Every structure is written in C-alpha cells, then in structure tokens.
C-alpha cells in the first residue's frame, strides 16, 4: 500500500538527496586533488589550483545545502542538531589544541595530522546525535 507523504517530508527527501550529491562530489574532488597531484597530472600547479577551486565550490555548496536542510527540520530535530554540533565544535577545539600541544612537546611519536581531527569530529558528531536522539525518545 502506498502512503501519501506530507509536502515537508517530500522536500526534506529532495534536499537530503541534493546534500548527498554535494557531499559525494566534495569527497571525490578532494580525493582527485590529493591523488591526482602526484599521479594523474604529475605536480602541475595550474591543474591542482583548478582542482582545489572546484573542491571548494562543492564544499560551499554542501554547507549551504545543509543549511537548507536545517531550515526544514522541526524544533526538536533542530535542537538535537544544534546541541550535537555545539558539543562537537567545543570538543574538537579542546582536543585539537591538546593534540597540537602533544605534537609540539613530542609527547606523541608522530606528527599531528588534520585527518585525525576530522575523524574525531565525525565520531563526536555521530555519538552526540545518537545520545541526543535517545534522550528525547
């Protein structure tokens, strides 16, 4: 049996789909620039700059699409998102600086990598979302 969806749900699905496409393009262009610089166009500066600009455009598109999605959420969903993002931002700042200090003072045997921070942010955001969603269940 086919159930009729409300116009808001339909719009949200459409924006989510757009967000997935922007995110996929952003990740793919990021990978293309990183790997392409060394392997595909062998260090050509011009091509790398073009790649970075395209990557930035996709990144900005992704951020604005996410903002559109926030506008389509209801008040509880928005509260959960904001709490999760606030906690993620705060924890990333604190942990990121501690991580940097550990690198400067050679407390860790490897160089601090931005990738670790991005991984931490992703993990933190997902954990906060799950905890907050459970809180309001």
């Amino acid at each position: 049996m086919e159930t009729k969806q409300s116009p808001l749900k339909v719009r949200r699905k459409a924006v989510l789909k757009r967000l997935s496409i922007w995110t996929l393009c952003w990740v793919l262009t990021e990978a293309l620039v990183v790997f392409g610089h060394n392997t595909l166009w062998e260090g050509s500066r011009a091509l790398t700059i073009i790649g970075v600009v395209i990557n930035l455009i996709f990144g900005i598109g992704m951020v604005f699409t996410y903002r559109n999605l926030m506008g389509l959420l209801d008040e509880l969903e928005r509260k959960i998102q904001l709490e999760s993002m606030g906690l993620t931002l705060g924890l990333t700042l604190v942990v990121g600086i501690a991580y940097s200090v550990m690198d400067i003072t050679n407390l860790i045997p490897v160089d601090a990598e931005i990738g670790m921070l991005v991984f931490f942010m992703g993990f933190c955001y997902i954990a906060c979302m799950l905890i907050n969603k459970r809180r309001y269940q």
Partner: protein
Amino acid sequence: MKNRIRVLRAEKNLTQAELADAVGVSRQTINAIEKEKFDPSLPTAFRIARIFGQTVEEVFHYQGE
C-alpha cells in the same frame, strides 16, 4: 510542562504520526512532547491545541520551578 496530548489524541482516535502530520513536525517530536521530555514552542503548542479544539491552557499546564 505537563500536557494532556495522549488523552486528547485517544479521544480523537489519532495516532502520533497523524497528529505529527497535522502539526507539521516529526512523530518523534510529538512523542517527546507527549512524554514531557521536550517543551514545544508557542506556535507548535497553539497548533496542537487548535487541532484538538481547545485552548493552550487546556492542553498544557506549566508547573513552575
């Protein structure tokens, strides 16, 4: 904030999903309001009260500190 949404919903024979669609929020939000884990905004409270043909004061009761 206490509320009578569950009782009013039962009287009107409405599911949480149907009420959510009528109010324009998610079913999870209606569930959280019903369980008094989340206080709705004024516009949402007015929309809920209007659906049940009641005033906001008849649906929601503020209990203070």
